[in-house]
């Protein structure tokens, strides 16, 4: 991360970092980068095999899932088993494959079919649109209130640093809707499309973006809710229902994993002032403090697209995800040495504390800023 300037001025740093001197932060950054360099220089055939096998396994699973759904015509259990398989296929495609390919983690293979620039994933948000809002805005401004648009997705208030207004009273309901329709939330949650309504984005660019979004939505809906059901003839509705169930399960799972990444208890938020003169060390430290891991076994890591290693993912967004598990203990040990909290708990605990925040911050605290109207 060379482009951050080194300045150690007296701006307010985050309290959890107050014990570190400028030299400490530099040393921390050096160690973070040393871990990265070791892994990146060892990438090779084994890693290539991992992603290629995973992609081909996912495609097989999807093919078989669609067939099993059609087999529901012979016995109703096909609809249910097929829907579960399809949900699993979609989860793998969106999380461990799509998300990570779109970060450019596999660009080094130089395979035009496994590239950040060309991959299109199986959900309604066009890849290019998501890349911009996620990779750029969220990864660069992780947990900086007001800058990281993924913090609460502009619908939820998850920190007392966000001013309260009455609209947040319904956030337990918005939270539920967000979980159910997560892919749609991601698709419409875009700063340029939001400003479209206010006429701020230059019109042709916004129009183009909107066209791309609508085309993608059309194709995605057409596939799952029209073409495949039509192929089943009189069994149109059960096939449609199975596909809808698969999309719903994927939404719920993606929601759970992603909300656990930045919103559980003890994840830190930052003010724009705290990051105004951020140095290299600060930048890495914010990624650690602003992220939370989900502890679990290999299956959890695979199904979460290794976002169970959210901390490592934020430190090394371009490192192939299959390597996070091996660097996690090193990062954890590094944090321990520098007295930096490393947030890792099971899925249930992380999710519980997210939901507690959803309820707690729906109402204003005693000292919170209150805005009367949106």
């Amino acid at each position, binding site marked *: 991360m060379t*482009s951050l300037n080194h300045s150690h001025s007296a701006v307010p740093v985050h309290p959890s970092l107050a014990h570190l001197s400028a030299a400490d932060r530099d040393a921390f950054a050096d160690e973070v980068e040393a871990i990265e360099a070791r892994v*990146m220089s060892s990438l*090779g055939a084994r890693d290539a095999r991992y992603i290629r096998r995973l992609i081909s396994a996912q495609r097989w699973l999807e093919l078989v899932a669609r067939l099993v759904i059609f087999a529901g015509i012979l016995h109703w259990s096909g609809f249910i088993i097929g829907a579960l398989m399809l949900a699993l296929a979609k989860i793998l495609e969106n999380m461990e494959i799509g998300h990570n390919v779109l970060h450019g983690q596999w660009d*080094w293979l*130089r395979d035009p079919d496994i590239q*950040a*620039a060309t991959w299109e994933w199986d959900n309604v948000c066009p890849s290019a649109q998501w890349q911009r809002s996620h990779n*750029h805005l969220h990864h660069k401004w992780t947990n900086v209130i007001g800058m990281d648009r993924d913090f609460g997705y502009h619908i939820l208030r998850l920190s007392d640093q966000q001013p309260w207004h009455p609209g947040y009273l319904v956030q337990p309901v918005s939270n539920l809707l967000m979980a159910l329709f997560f892919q749609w939330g991601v698709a419409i949650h875009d700063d340029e499309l939001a400003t479209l309504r206010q006429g701020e984005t230059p019109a042709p660019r916004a129009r183009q973006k909107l066209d791309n979004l609508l085309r993608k939505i059309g194709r995605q809906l057409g596939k799952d809710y029209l073409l495949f059901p039509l192929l089943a003839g009189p069994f149109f509705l059960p096939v449609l229902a199975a596909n809808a169930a698969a999309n719903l399960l994927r939404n719920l799972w993606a929601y759970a994993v992603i909300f656990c990444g930045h919103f559980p208890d003890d994840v830190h938020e930052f003010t724009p002032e705290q990051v105004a003169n951020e140095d290299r060390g600060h930048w890495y430290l914010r990624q650690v403090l602003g992220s939370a891991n989900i502890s679990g076994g290999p299956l959890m890591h695979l199904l979460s697209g290794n976002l169970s290693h959210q901390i490592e993912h934020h430190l090394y967004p*371009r490192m192939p995800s299959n390597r996070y598990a091996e660097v996690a203990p090193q990062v954890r040990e590094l944090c321990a040495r520098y007295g930096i909290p490393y947030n890792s708990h099971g899925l249930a605990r992380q999710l519980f504390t997210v939901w507690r925040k959803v309820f707690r911050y729906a109402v204003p605290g005693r000292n919170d800023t209150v805005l009367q109207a949106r």
Partner: protein
Amino acid sequence: MVASTVKKLLRAGDWLATPLNAARYLETINPLWSDHGRGRVERLIQETPDTVTLVIRANGAWAGGEAGQYVQLGLDIDGVRYWRCYSLASPVQPGSREFSVTVNRLDGGRVSTYINDCLRAGDLVHLKATAGDFVLPAQRDDQKLLFISAGSGVTPVMGMLRQLIAERSGADVVMLHFSPDYAHCIFHDELRASNSEQRRIHLAVTREDARDGDLAGHFSADMLEQVCPDWRSRQAYVCGPSSLMSAVSELFLGAGLSSQLKQEAFVLKRAEVPEGAGGKVGFVVAGKQVDADGKTSLLEVAEGAGLTPEHGCRMGICCGCLATLKEGQVRDLNTGEVFGESGEKVRICVCAAAGDVSLEL
């Protein structure tokens, strides 16, 4: 009829395969059912201690080509795909789509070494369309041809020779081929066996004593005069190292016959870039060229030249600034690694010029 039905089905399949296309699923079942050019290595033939011939069967997506043209061959080595050009050393068999390329191990050549040491029958290679006009004339039965080659420059010439033999062409051929010694003479036996009244093949060795009737030494006008007195009236082809290429082309130039000579340089030298040096940066869409040092990101260089490339984080994490590399190589400012193959997408916010580069911006 069948093909068009298959095409229609595939197009319908593309809708079902959204957001990918049907070919991505078909290639999961069989890698050769891809819509990208691919081939299977059917056989390997060891020609000399450091030269191997690959007999490749291409899939239907590969456009095919003519003997003497070059094909781009892509191989995944340690996970990374590398592309190299190799001449078709045989005509493409119409029914089987089989053809061969012959690869000489280059010193420090990653791909040629891999092909010689690691490639096995059954392995998959990636193929791009062939190109080049180093091919036989369309009307050739009554033609007089002259082939001059040296070292592995024999491969495209061999392709054309094999094609002439296969089609029992009436063309009259003289061939002059140089190699350092007999052990390193690629296609030695086949060349000898192909020698006939109609196709006179002369071998020359430069570092060993010549045997029965062969020639000794490097190319010279006298030697050509001796083996082929009517060279001025022939369509000529030359392929080999630059010393041979320039000797032959000067001779033809001096005789005012350059238009009768087709040349194929088979060694592309990549300019050595001194550590940390920059170079000229060309922006092909904008039609601009500027000088850049080896430390300034290409994004900044582009902005300095008045361009406004799309970008995001400016720190290498978002891929918002990817631009296609047309030529040359870049240096990753974070890792210092110098890389780049033409067509590759690079993050211009963290890459600087390493020598001359051109970008599709």
